């Protein structure tokens, strides 16, 4: 095994394990922590694909902001009855698991067995593409319009979050 392969497989193993634990673990805090671990491994995988900028932004946005928000909410709610929320497995959940496994087998068939493994390495220009300079140039020329639209989206989200989380939100039962 080369150094590259060792890095890839260890990241994949840890990340896959963390993803499974997000679904399996009982307490939401543990799920959130495993999700953070998973995000770190994904950032590592992005680095193996030469996407440095996206990897760091991924850490800042997901681990630094979104997951802190999740933890914050879980702590604020402080779910005493979380253990009471016994999630029993019924036939629906078994069907869901079976269908997902079927989906995975299908994709395994398509990606690994049906397609012969291509011997193409990572594109040599990807090293240049992953840098801030290159992405910034594209973002502010070719993708300027969608970029401006995201600012509207974010403002809408901020206003929505403030309105929803305000104390006097009436919801008739």
């Amino acid at each position, binding site marked *: 095994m080369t150094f590259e392969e060792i890095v*890839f497989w260890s990241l*994949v193993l840890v*990340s*896959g394990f963390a993803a499974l634990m*997000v*679904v399996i673990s009982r307490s*939401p805090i543990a*799920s*959130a922590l495993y*999700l953070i671990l*998973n995000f770190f491994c994904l950032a590592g*995988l*992005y680095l193996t*694909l*030469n*996407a440095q900028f*996206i990897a760091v*932004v*991924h850490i800042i946005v*997901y681990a630094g902001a*979104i997951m802190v*928000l*999740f933890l914050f*909410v879980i702590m604020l*709610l402080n779910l005493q*009855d*979380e253990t009471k*929320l016994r*999630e029993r497995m019924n036939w*629906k959940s078994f069907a*869901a698991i079976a269908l*997902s*496994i079927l*989906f*995975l087998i299908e*994709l395994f068939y398509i*990606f*690994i067995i049906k*397609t012969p*493994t291509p*011997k*193409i390495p*990572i594109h040599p220009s*990807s090293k240049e*593409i*992953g840098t801030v300079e290159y*992405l910034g140039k*594209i*973002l502010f020329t070719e993708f300027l319009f969608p970029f401006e639209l995201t600012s509207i*989206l974010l403002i*809408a*989200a*901020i206003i929505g*979050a*403030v*309105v*929803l*989380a305000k104390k006097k*939100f009436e*919801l008739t039962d």
Partner: protein
Amino acid sequence: MIPLNYYLLFAAFLFSVGVVGVLIRRNAIIVFMCIELMLNSVNLTFIAFSAFMGNAIGQMFVFFVMTVAAAEAAVGLAIIIALFRNKKTINIDQINLLKW
């Protein structure tokens, strides 16, 4: 050298784990986390394609997906807090206002 297939298959694995989580968990916050997991598996596919094709558009897409995910997390968690304040639960089976 790691071929593109492996990245795609791993992304598919993450996606199906996320789908299972959304379908079988009843805790709204965990369901929400599983959605983030699915979004991230798509991001991984985008970046893998971008790197192997030498094309920056995939990474741009990831950038926008992250923005949408951030907005979604803010609004979604606000909704969860509002629901918890009114119904004292975040079990999605008991949140059935829109179901009749």
